[in-house]
């Protein structure tokens, strides 16, 4: 069962070197209220696991601009020059991960798998140093689970059981990351009564949600 907390309380749980999955795609579906609280807390040397580094003034880009990110596993940084600068000068260590592989590695951790075999990246730098395994005549790269301490996600609505639904393309990485945090904190626009979300419509069952923060955005 979840506990309702403030964004500041959520931010206070996150420590230097915490491994933090943060939901969203180019900041759509990003937990902006919680991110702002982490910016306010100033916690540095975070390890972030994100699809993209978003924009300099939106999503996880704000953590980058405030020099709070020490390392990242990310698939796309093209919309954020600041992270590229910090990577080039050695301030941030980055592992670039193909987006589908990133999602499977995060899902693997959340669902108790040690990893998956994927063809994505074969014959590219992504395969370097990794085990290649042949199954039924095809080669695959062994990609291991990405461990995380926290998942910070954004949903549209929670019910009193912690069940979540999302909004359109703001769903993206959020349901996958929701499964993966040892502690999952969901920022939501509203909390409705038990039964306020049809059991058929639930995307993230409440079992994955430890804390809920109300969004300041809506």
């Amino acid at each position, binding site marked *: 069962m979840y506990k309702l907390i403030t964004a500041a309380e959520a931010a206070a749980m996150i420590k230097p070197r915490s491994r933090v999955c943060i939901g969203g795609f180019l900041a759509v579906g990003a937990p902006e209220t919680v991110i702002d609280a982490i910016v306010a807390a100033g916690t540095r040397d975070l390890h972030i696991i994100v699809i993209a580094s978003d924009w300099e003034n939106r999503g996880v880009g704000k953590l980058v601009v405030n020099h709070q990110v020490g390392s990242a596993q990310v698939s796309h940084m093209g919309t954020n020059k600041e992270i590229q600068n910090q990577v080039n000068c050695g301030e941030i260590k980055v592992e670039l991960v193909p987006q589908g592989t990133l999602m499977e590695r995060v899902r693997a951790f*959340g*669902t108790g798998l040690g990893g998956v075999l994927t063809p994505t990246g074969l014959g590219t730098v992504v395969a370097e140093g990794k085990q290649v395994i042949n199954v039924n005549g095809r080669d695959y790269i062994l990609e291991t689970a990405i461990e995380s301490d926290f998942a910070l996600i954004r949903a549209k609505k929670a019910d009193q*059981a912690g069940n979540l639904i999302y909004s359109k393309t703001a769903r993206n990485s959020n349901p996958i990351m929701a499964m993966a945090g040892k502690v999952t904190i969901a920022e939501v626009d509203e909390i409705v009564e038990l039964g306020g979300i049809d*059991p058929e419509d639930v995307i993230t*069952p409440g*079992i994955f949600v430890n804390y809920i923060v109300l969004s300041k955005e809506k």
Partner: protein
Amino acid sequence: MAMDKRAQIGARIAKELKDGDYVNLGIGLPTETANHIPPGIRVVFQSENGIMGVGPAPANGEEDQDMINAGGGFITALPGASYFDSATSFGIIRGGHIDVTVLGALQVDQEGNLANWMIPGKLIPGMGGAMDLVTGAKKVIVAMEHCDKQGNPKILRKCTLPLTAKGRVSLIVTDMAVLEMTPQGLVLQEVSEGYTVQDVVKATEADLIIPDHLK
């Protein structure tokens, strides 16, 4: 097993549950647990075929053909329930999100090994979801009769039947006793009314640690 003994086992296991726990009950004896949840404790039951928030069985004539639990019995859903596919369901289980699972056993041993899915040459029902549940749940409780129908011990030094999982059992609750797996070995924690410590030791092949409070 007599109804009162089933109830006794269920009630004892229910005392292990904490408010807010997510729980998966195996078919048969383990389901007895649901009838004894202490007041003030709210637990959420999963059934691994794809529902969180299982409610009581429906009244006669109110069965929904699309609402069953993992044993095939008709169920209802409580407010706040959710349905999901089997991969998500086992993602929940294998991912360590279930607080407690209660399962029956053919054999348990003093290393926390469990055998409950086949008897070679005789019964091959298959493991269904049991291997994932025993591997993934945070706490694995075994609910069973202390001895088999022939009176032979089921709590052994070493399981002889094919294992369901290695070293994952936390607690064994039987009609005779409550036994806890510890790093030191299997500790006899409680003896049921009507039995002595000697009765339990005699009905158990495994080496038991007898704590001071039972000596």
